[in-house]
């Protein structure tokens, strides 16, 4: 069983219009899964992380309902069939 990554509307144009991306492989951490996402949809990852690979300050990533900022960040471990949800933080222009 792989994992599912849910994308907010603003990022779906960079994933061919998809609201979800399913990755069939097993991944140890959120960062591993996002690296795989980057290979498939680089435009999504450019907007989620900066060029150093750090999560942008106004983007939140949840794993099975928990914000990774309060876990181990991109090093947060993934379970079998985990769901990753990417959402913009409460901020805006």
């Amino acid at each position, binding site marked *: 069983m792989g994992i599912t990554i849910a994308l907010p509307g603003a990022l779906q144009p960079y994933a061919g219009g998809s609201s979800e991306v399913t990755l069939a492989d097993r991944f140890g951490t959120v960062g591993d899964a996002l690296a795989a996402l980057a290979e498939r949809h680089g435009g999504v990852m*450019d*907007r989620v992380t900066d060029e*150093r690979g750090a999560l*942008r300050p*106004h983007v939140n990533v949840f794993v099975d309902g928990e914000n990774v900022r309060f876990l181990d960040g991109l090093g947060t471990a993934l379970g079998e069939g985990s769901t990753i949800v990417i959402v913009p933080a409460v901020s*805006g*222009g």
Partner: protein
Amino acid sequence: MSPEARAGDVVLLVGTMKGAFLVWSNAARAEWRIEGPHFRGESVYALALDQRGGRRRMLAATRSMHWGAVIRASDDLGATWSEPDRQNVRFPEGSDDALGNIWQIRPGRASEPDVLYCGVEPAALFESRDGGESWSPVEGLLNHEHRKRWMPGAGGLCLHTILPDPADEARMAVAISTGGFYRTDDGGRSWRPRNAGVRAVFLPDPYPEFGQCVHKVVHHPSRPERLFLQNHWGLYRSDDWGDAWVDVANGVPSDFGFAIEVHPHDPDTVYIVPLDSDQFRCVPDARLRVYRTRDAGASWQPLETGLPQHDAYDTVLRDALAADRHDPAGIYFGTRGGKLYGSADDGESWREIADDLPPIVCVKAAVIGAA
């Protein structure tokens, strides 16, 4: 969008904290039409219209609070804009830096119509050699030994001024807040600080080799070696590409300010908008006045006809003052309070073009058909 734009029409490219606006008029510049916002909710600190080499390309630096900054392009005068899939301005792999914002887009020399530059935060210079499709850092400045000692000002550590020498492809200057004024004479391989005579009131040594908080530098292409510099306290001129600077704050109410622009047809005529002080960044005495010199800084005169002369607690930022190339020239500026003013007579008289835009951070003026 204005697909019906004709040669001689004027477009103001107005960048705000919540998007960009295109403000159109004809050569008379009596009536204006506001079109926008483009990039709703994104700040736009840099805009340009590149009319070299037969193209008519608008470029916009847009920054989403969530998703970062990119440069977008429009080849139909703003009717449609590119949506780059990838972050097209980025620090190289292994860098400690990440792009914060893009502060300046500068088309290069007429002799190099595919070359553009952009200045970013944290301070670095990027170059495009394909008309703005792709960008790469200018390594000579990126790896400069001073770079780690530059410090951010209130707006961030930004490279905001880019001055290619139109007569010499090896020479170019940039300005950084705070870092100072730097010049290359070898096509960007090496850069030397050129700040002799420019104050840094916030440092123990008020005249350091570098580290000044230069707010903006301008020159006229017909006399590129003559530079005018608005400093964080201080108004200066150089006649030798920055080798030496002299104080020209003669008769201004304050030598603090951000915005400075040169007249399109006279290298000795320059416009500024003085501010009260660094602690109170509003126009002096709550009177909105543009100051103009016609003698290269020997004297300055206020221009206030048509501008509010009481209760004007407003600010004009470093890139929010611009001139078109008509004769007489159109002079324009936008304020943090969202007001856009214009003059169609070299600054003698002014009128309000817009009064309720979001905070304005950038104003560029272009005449359609004039490269």
